[in-house]
């Protein structure tokens, strides 16, 4: 799809080719800083002490390195909250659609453990292609039957790598 108004560099926003999403304001940037600082604090005070031993001997305790990194998150989170920088480009509807794709992927994982790759992969391909708006029978056949079939044959038959 061509968008004559945009320069080549402009087309490369985080979504790839196409029109750019509008940049969001600094309030969100401040909130993001606070969220990261909170995450860092939770790591330092809660998660790391519970999930890593404090061993006195040796050069570094198992807690030291992650606590240092979490400390950096806290400091720079606060810096971001006070001096917000950077752009945020997102669309809530697209985020919802992305969540549906992730849901479909996780559901497919469940199906794979029960019914195997050969049944689950074409189902996922069909769902995603229909979700993307594909209605042409030939392309549907390529995506739903041929591609998963090629992948299965390549790994199961040619490379002898067992799939679920």
């Amino acid at each position, binding site marked *: 799809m061509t968008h004559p108004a945009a320069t*080549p560099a402009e087309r490369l926003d985080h979504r790839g080719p196409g029109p750019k999403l509008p940049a969001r304001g600094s309030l969100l940037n401040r909130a993001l800083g606070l969220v990261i600082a909170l995450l860092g604090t939770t790591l330092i005070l809660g998660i790391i002490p519970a999930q890593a031993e404090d061993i006195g001997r040796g050069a*570094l305790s198992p807690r030291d390195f992650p606590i240092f*990194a979490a400390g950096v998150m806290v400091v720079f989170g606060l810096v971001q909250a006070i001096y917000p920088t950077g752009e945020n480009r*997102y669309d809530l509807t697209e985020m919802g659609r992305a969540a549906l794709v992730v849901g479909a992927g996780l559901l497919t994982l469940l199906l794979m453990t029960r019914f195997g790759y050969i049944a689950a992969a074409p189902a996922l391909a069909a769902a995603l292609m229909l979700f993307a708006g594909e209605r042409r029978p030939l392309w549907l056949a390529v995506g739903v039957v041929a591609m998963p079939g090629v992948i299965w044959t390549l790994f199961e038959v040619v490379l002898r790598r067992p799939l679920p």
Partner: protein
Amino acid sequence: MDTSIILAGVGDAFTLYNLLFVVCGVALGQFVGAVPGLSAPMAIAIAVPFTFTLSPLAAIAFLVGVGKGGTVGGAIPAVLINTPGSPEAAATALDGAPLARQGKPLKAMKMALYASVTGDTMSDIVLIVAAPPLAILALRMGPVEVACLMIFSLTIIAGLVGDSTAKGVMAAAFGIVCASVGLDPEHGSPRLTFGFFELDDGLPLPAVAIGVLAVAQILIQLSRRGAATEAAIVVDANQPAADKRVSFAEYWACRTTMLRGGAIGTVVGAIPGIGASAAAFLSYSIARRSDPDPQSFGKGNIKGVAASEAANSAVMGANLIPLLTLGVPGNVVAALIIGAFVIQGIQPGPLLFQEQGRLIYGLFGAMMMANVMNLCIGLFGLRLWSFVVKAPASVIFPTALILCMTGVYLTTGGIFGVALMFAFAVIGYLMRAFGFSVVAFIIAFVLGRPLELSLAQALIVTQGEVGRLADHPVGLALLALSLLSVYWLGLRKPKGIKAERTGAAPYQPAP
């Protein structure tokens, strides 16, 4: 090094088995480069898990082939539809697209191909000549120097943080937290595993890299409404022959531009953290300034295409200089190649030349072959890849997602890894949406564990006394370089690398 090892290594590259994987890699790279929305780093991320069934040389040569092919492929949509297939091809579009509009798309694509191969070959020669002596130098370093080197490596992230330094540093810190998962390297005590024994070896790199780089990009593409790629440009079959080819006179007229572009790309590629887009724009800008007719640039000057492509392709070979000599990944492709080395049970770094000399010279041979293959497949496939530009996203991305799931399942040995992949895909998606650099995250994730280990060793050697650093002048010099790199790449924000740092871009894996 023994000449027989060098010859045996180069000979390995020319076996039918290895050549086949070089050809497949280059073809796959050109394919993914030609499809806007796919990119060579994404393809490499997907391919890494599959390479563990191959021999080390075939595996690494295949991945390097994908990287080289991807750079050539990225120029095709840049020329045909003014939409770079990869970020480093953005500068190519400045003159490539006007040439296509003038009815000369094949001429522009062929010039891009010739310039790419020229620049890439130059860079590979520099790699082959410079890497072995640098590795010998690196071998003289002790634990303190290695720790300082790791710190220096980490500061390359300063060049990859994107528009917001704070967000970039937070992304890198999060990468280090994720790298801390698993048994701690000094004591072997489980850390941040939440009771999952599958995490004792740490978060699997394939699951994290494929999730953050590839699946997040697939989510972005599939969540867009009406994202199907439409027909690009019609190549008129009856156009004059002169408009369809690049004559030797035209190629020769661009020789200075290509050599300069190749040199810029080689220097930029050898410095971790800058990248191919910066090299391409820098080369383009210098070519325009030094041309007697600068006004013609941006309107279809073939030298613009040559300058950009020679530079961005030259980055690929030079990128391997820090990887092979120091074990330091200069960009995401190099980080993924480290993953492939590790999967094969090989630790990248200065010892590679001693322990795996034959493999490394085999790789050098394969790289030169990949350049030849890039030219041959490119000439044969330009028209074919032009059709690829029109392939529907609705087929490509679901197939890519199934490939990602398959690859991660096979490497991590189960469903748990695939679930992790989806978790990191969500993280990657959110990072891009909110402007956090995924590249900084991945580089920090790769460097985190070796940094912790070398830091612990250095602390033991120096007994934790800063004053003892005076006994290690090389280490001190590296620390000074670290400060310089933070200043130059992070605080000073040079214009040349600004485009590269729009780093939240999923495409952008290419720095």
